[in-house]
């Protein structure tokens, strides 16, 4: 097998690009880079290292195509890193929790909602929930402080929740 972490690399690329062919391209380019920067590998987890390269490759790739503009950084800069009071309020008094719980269990709905999230939110949810990486590992891959991982995850979940609530039941 090419690599024990090829599936992880592809899955991240696929969720970032949202397209199978683009994911192919990104993974191939990432592997070329991985080999080129082989000597730069200074220990740690091989999967995290590879995922960091996939991620960087994706952002370069997207920038070249003008497909990516970070709305999250804007979001975080203006709204602040902390989940706000109103967010907490909504947590309590949003739509009927039972209805939300039902919707969260609808995989098709969650999948569509996830695809609609801004890239950085999608990315952090994939790293956390699908790769089951720790906050520390995610901080290393995304290149942000631990506190930002925590707050970004909170915001990502909140946005996902709003997205789910906003979508009409099929």
């Amino acid at each position, binding site marked *: 097998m090419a690599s024990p972490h*090829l599936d992880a690399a592809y899955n991240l690329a696929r969720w970032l690009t949202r397209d199978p062919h683009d994911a192919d391209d990104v993974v191939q380019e990432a592997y070329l880079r991985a080999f080129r920067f082989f000597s730069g590998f200074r220990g*740690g987890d091989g999967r995290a290292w590879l995922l960091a390269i996939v991620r960087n490759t994706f952002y370069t790739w997207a920038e070249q195509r003008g497909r990516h503009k970070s709305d999250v950084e804007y979001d975080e800069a203006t709204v602040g890193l902390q*989940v706000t009071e109103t967010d907490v309020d909504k947590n309590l008094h949003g739509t009927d929790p039972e209805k939300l719980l039902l919707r969260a269990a609808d995989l098709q709905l969650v999948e569509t909602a996830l695809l609609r999230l801004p890239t950085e939110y999608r990315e952090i949810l994939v790293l956390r*929930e699908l790769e089951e990486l720790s906050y520390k590992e995610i901080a290393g891959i995304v290149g942000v402080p631990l506190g930002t991982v925590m707050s970004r995850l909170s915001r990502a*979940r909140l946005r996902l929740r709003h997205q*789910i609530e906003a979508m009409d039941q099929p």
Partner: protein
Amino acid sequence: MNTMNCEEARELLPAYGDGELDLPRSLALEKHLDGCADCTAALRIQRALSQGVRGVTYHRAPDALRARLRAQLPSPVAAPAATTASVPQAQPRRRRDWSRWAMPIAASLALAVGLNLMLATQRSQDVLRNELVASHVRSLQVEHLSDVASSDQHTVKPWFNGKLDYSPPVRDLTQQDFPLLGGRLDYIAHRQVAALIYRHRKHFINLYVWPAQDGDAAPDSHGSEGYTLVHWRHEGMEYWAVSDLNGEELRHFAELQIEATTDKTANAPNT
């Protein structure tokens, strides 16, 4: 302790749900959750969202991509192998057959072996580091810091005789503010190793020593779960220092060790 309010609880919920909250705060939060239906409901929603995302498609790499990577990737190992294989004249037939396959075979071998090996080596390094940290932590927890407690290097060194099949260099660094406290036998990487215990201010240092397979290597710092590790190889010995000191101080300790084991005149009693 038991006066956590909803605001504080809500801030800790994400980390708690992700299993990233430390034990004391988890316990405090659980206490709050016991009496707060709102926060419990919020945790339930968070968990449901988390669970929902876990259920979405995990896209496995298509076989075609796997095959293409195997065939296309250049590698530092493949290049020289292919060059030496393409000497044209001698035994033309056999050579041609070989060289046609040399590149793809070498490339896929290098890819498969190289990447896996690299990751495997990395993993074994991780395992070693974890073992060292675990041993360090254990030695402090059970107050089993030393089997032979002595600040005299001439007492500690002979104690290892007959217990190990090698003789670890033992140096007292009291004058440099790293007093030797004693020695201990430990079990690391499937072998018995010497552990020397030093102290710097209120911090303990475990220095693990065993015979090296490779040549000298300069001190290199690693971090693992809040502990600092510094590794070096010197005159046929492998050294791992583990402590909660910061990287700079532990590296200084490493340099003092190297200095002391290099300079034979430093062997003279220095008290």
